[in-house]
């Protein structure tokens, strides 16, 4: 990886996005201790109650405290987003680099397979991967990650394809560098900016896709929850009890903004050009 931007100030977007994200992580990690109620405790006397001193974000259709569920569900959501993105990166980066640099038959074969995979709708893909076994959060994360491998591979390939034509890559070939050096030291560091931006986007999509799978009964199992599932479950009551959606909706928004800001900041931090002219 490229050297960090030593001496320079950190990009503002990284400070804001990173700070926000760290806060989110801290809160959900501490959730079991800070949540005011157990997340699955039903109170049939307080169904769909508006926010009050007792229930800051109100209660849902089973009388469960929305804030508590939000905090606990955040653990699953953030974990799912991060793990799924990591899976897509770990598989997508090597495949993409290889296809974009080696070209020829390898590239052609991989791209046609990816075309086929991409023609299958993501939800259907998730069904295929998950329906065979008992659902679990881990499996959902891996399934969502695999669903995003083709997109990630495509992106890395197109970036690697452009970079392969740069003269510094020719120079490396000209002094007899081996494949791993060219891919990892010449091409990858220059591909990071695009990969980081894509990864931060993927992470937010992953949270939503995981929610959709949960909604179909393939992901998180009730009464556990994640933000996506909370939104899905609360959708019928959006007129009568909008606060149930409001909490997870806002949480998801903040997460998306934080991750994207962090992605932008990280991209700038890794870019030696941002160090300014000497």
């Amino acid at each position, binding site marked *: 990886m490229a050297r960090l931007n030593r001496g320079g100030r950190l990009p503002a977007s990284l400070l804001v996005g990173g700070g926000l994200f760290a806060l989110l992580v801290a809160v959900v990690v501490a959730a079991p201790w800070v949540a005011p109620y157990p997340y699955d405790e039903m109170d049939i006397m307080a169904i769909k109650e508006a926010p009050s001193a007792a229930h800051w974000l109100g209660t849902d259709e089973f009388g469960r405290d929305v804030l508590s569920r939000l905090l606990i569900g955040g653990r699953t959501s953030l974990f799912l987003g991060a793990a799924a993105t990591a899976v897509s990166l770990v598989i997508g980066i090597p495949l993409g680099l290889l296809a974009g640099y080696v070209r020829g038959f390898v590239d052609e074969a991989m791209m046609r397979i990816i075309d086929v995979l991409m023609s299958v709708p993501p939800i259907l893909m998730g069904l295929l991967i998950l329906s065979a076994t008992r659902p679990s959060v881990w499996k959902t994360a891996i399934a969502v990650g695999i669903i995003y491998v083709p997109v990630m591979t495509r992106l890395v390939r197109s970036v690697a394809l452009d970079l392969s034509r740069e003269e*510094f890559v020719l120079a490396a070939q000209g002094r*007899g560098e081996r494949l791993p050096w060219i891919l990892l030291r010449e091409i990858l560091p*220059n591909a990071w900016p695009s990969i980081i931006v894509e990864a931060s986007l993927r992470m937010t999509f992953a949270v939503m896709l995981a929610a959709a799978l949960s909604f179909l009964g393939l992901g998180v199992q009730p009464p556990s929850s994640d933000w996506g599932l909370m939104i899905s479950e609360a959708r019928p009551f959006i007129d009568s009890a909008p606060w149930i959606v409001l909490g997870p909706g806002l949480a998801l928004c903040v997460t998306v903004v934080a991750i994207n800001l962090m992605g932008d900041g990280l991209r700038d931090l890794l870019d030696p050009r941002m160090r300014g002219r000497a």
Partner: protein
Amino acid sequence: MTALLEIEDLAIAYGTARGPMQAVEGFSARVERGRTLGIVGESGSGKSTVALALMGLLPAGARVTAGSMRLAGEELTTMTPEKRRLTRGRRIGMVFQDPFLSLNPGLTVGAQVSEPLTVHRGLDAAAAMAEAARLLDSVGIGRAVEVAASYPHQLSGGMRQRAMIATALACDPEMLVLDEPTTALDVTIEAQILDLLLGLQKDRGVAMVFISHNLGVIQRVAHEVAVLYAGRVIEQGSAEAILSAPQHPYTAGLLGSLPTLDHRGHRLTPIPGGLPDPFRPMHGCNFAPRCRYREEACVAERQVLRSLAPDQLVRCRRAPLEDPAPAAPEPARARWAAADGAGPVVEIREVSKTFSRGGWAAGLFGRAPATGLRALDGVSLRIEPGEIVGLVGESGSGKSTLGRCVIRLVQPDAGEITVQGRDVLRASGGALRRTLLATQMIFQNPSSSLNPRHTVAQAIGRPVRLSGWKETPVAARVTQLLELVRLPATYAERYPHQLSGGERQRVGIARALATRPSVLLCDEAVSALDVSVQASIVNLLADLRDELGVAILFISHDLSVVAHLADRVAVLYRGRLVEEGPTEEILRAPNHPYTEALLSAAPLLRTGERIRLRGEIDTAAPIPGCCFTGRCHRRIDERCDTVPPPLRQAATDHGILCHIPVEELAAR
């Protein structure tokens, strides 16, 4: 009578994050109908900004801060945007540098030429199309109707630039603004385009503002010249006066950095240093930090344009310069001498390469390579130790392919290449890697030849390690290599974006030298640089040969640079070596007709009759006879088309591939 275009005290500033940046200041000029103003300058001089201001196309953030521009007495700076839009195209036409970018790939050429006709002249589609064909015909495009129906990618660069000129001329403008219109073209095509422009000017009386970094081109088209340096005009007046007797040290320096065929062997005199910081405008002369004639007063006092001769204004208090010639020539240095009996460093034997047009799948479906592009056709070339061999040819001649074959970036179909007696084409694994270290390449583009993520020390240190350097620590070797290319050791920690184009090119050279190669392959290594920087790199390459005895294969389209540097020149046309010999021999008759044309097309401030080549390099159908027959001005008869030409010996080591006997070739 007022001039068609009058510019007075024009100043343009860019608003940037670091505050306003003065791009142009105090620019004044007049252009009469039927005359051409040449604006000369290197990158960063502000010459393109002037062109964009004339067109009213300044980018967001840039604005005219002072002065006026009047077209036939009408003020342009205060015109409403709508009126300005109508002026563009109707009264002022513009031609940009890159014909590959300035035509829309999704529209037919005819549609693009006829567009201004429908917009500005209100013609209907059919009439506009007919007019477009007539315009294309007037800029020398044969089969105009056919060309009008084709898309830009089906045309060559020269044809596209002709189409651009046709578009600019569509509404019969009073003035043309041309921004480096021939820079992206081959010299023979450039000569054709310049002829076309001169002819059009004569017929239509159109005024031209011609912007170029190339003094040779300016000399051929311009009546008046303004030399821009960092936003200020430093010399202005009649083209003849300025180009024959420059008075400003910068103009003199530019001329001194130009390699010319007539003064071979002289060391070029580059201008040291770089452009001043545009954010800190200088009160005095902004060229002073680079000037040999600098005195204290130059920096302290404001410099004004003053008149020395009737047609010549110069912004220099010391002009006329008492000593416009370069400083005392450097003492001759010890030349590296090859050990006797050492074999050639590189030997290329009968190398051929055909690129197939389809992808890897094309072969599967029976599309034979016969339809492919024959890039190299039985080329043989030897490079002796410490020798500089120049390889000249236009784009499409196969010269880059040959260079890439030597370092195995391209695998030839047939032939043999050895480096220091070791086979390159059939080697693999460790043996290949060792051989590759002996041949290092220097690339054209200083902005892409260095990995932006690696520091200079990393870029140079890697090949040092690969070559198994053990004598000193790698860091010490990096410092030594930086010294070799005349860069301070402190540059080791810099990233490429912190270097200027010339400095990056030096780092590229240091990186190539890091493996102690016996031959450097320079593929257009100086073509992307400004003239003054180009001169210093050319000098550096010559010095490195003298100091280290490294052989150089210098690949370029620019015959004047090649002839300046090389001991021997090989001329490539359509993948065949049509002439090869010692540089002195190449520079005088007899020559292959193609070399003859290249020599005469090179715009090097030379006078005399020029040979005009018809058409352009044709890469399509293979021909049984001479590869040059289609464009040759000395073609004899069908023999040239059907019989392969014999190799004629004009002198020892000087071979010409031509049907015409040597004696006849010598009599031009």
